[in-house]
């Protein structure tokens, strides 16, 4: 029985209820022990950030925080959450202000924000590995 209020309609649309619905967050939460407060609170914060749909970078960061706290537990439930995140969130990068954004899927196996940022910037690197000073990465919600 899910004891959490339902997510608002503003959240990215459910393409497949089996693996990427926002409901995966509720199922995941329902399987956690509320007495394990650090993990439970972090998961609740993730759900709040997802429901608000305004700060995608914070949402990705929180996803990775929850992943670190889990340390591989609740594997299947969190796999479904990762699949949802891959569809609901996008990584975008551009080499300089005014250039068009290049969009990427959030990697399913992502674990650190700085790694995602570095790999999104990598295509802009010069032959000596220099990243242009104006290069920039941002996170967005896929349906926004």
């Amino acid at each position, binding site marked *: 029985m899910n004891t959490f209020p339902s997510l608002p309609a503003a959240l990215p649309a459910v393409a497949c209820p089996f693996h990427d619905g926002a409901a995966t967050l509720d199922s995941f939460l329902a399987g956690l022990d509320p007495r394990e407060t650090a993990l439970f609170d972090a998961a609740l914060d993730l759900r709040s950030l997802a429901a608000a749909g305004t700060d995608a970078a914070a949402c990705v960061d929180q996803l990775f925080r929850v992943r670190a706290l889990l340390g591989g537990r609740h*594997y*299947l439930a969190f*796999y479904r959450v990762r699949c949802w995140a891959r569809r609901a969130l996008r990584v975008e990068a551009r080499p300089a202000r005014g250039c068009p954004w290049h969009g990427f899927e959030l990697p399913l*196996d992502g674990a650190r924000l700085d790694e995602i940022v570095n790999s999104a910037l990598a295509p802009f690197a010069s032959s000596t590995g220099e990243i242009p000073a104006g290069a920039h990465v941002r996170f967005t919600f896929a349906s926004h």
Partner: protein
Amino acid sequence: MKSTVTTPASTRVDSPVVKALNLLLADSYALMANTHYAHWNVEGPGFFVLHKAFESHYEDLFKAIDEIAERVRALDAYAIGGLRNFANESGIDELTSPLAAKDYVASLVVAHEKTLQDAVALRDAAGAANDLETQDLAIGRIQWHQKTVWMLKSYLK
């Protein structure tokens, strides 16, 4: 007891039963392709166990796909075919890049659950059409997917 020769009109071309059979066919094909991919590319300490388990799963799916398609033909309809058609019809995401061993298992659980859902819809459509032979096929698929999901989930515990 009905025979497959005197097919009830309600199970012919474009009937709910035929549509449900073709969806089960497409998802079973997609699941077989993903299971093959996992069989070939899985790595790590669980390699031998998973490599062998995935092999037995795609072998079962290969036989089942043939039975499902031939049931469509027995109902006087045509089975869908072609990789692009299967991909368009299927609700299962293709595996296209290497994953961690446990992610192969988790992704296959999700794909089995989708295929199981198709088989349940087929069972109910066949029941409504009083097509007991198709219902029998659907129940067999449900039992196999339920057992396979249990095994895969146990690996993730």
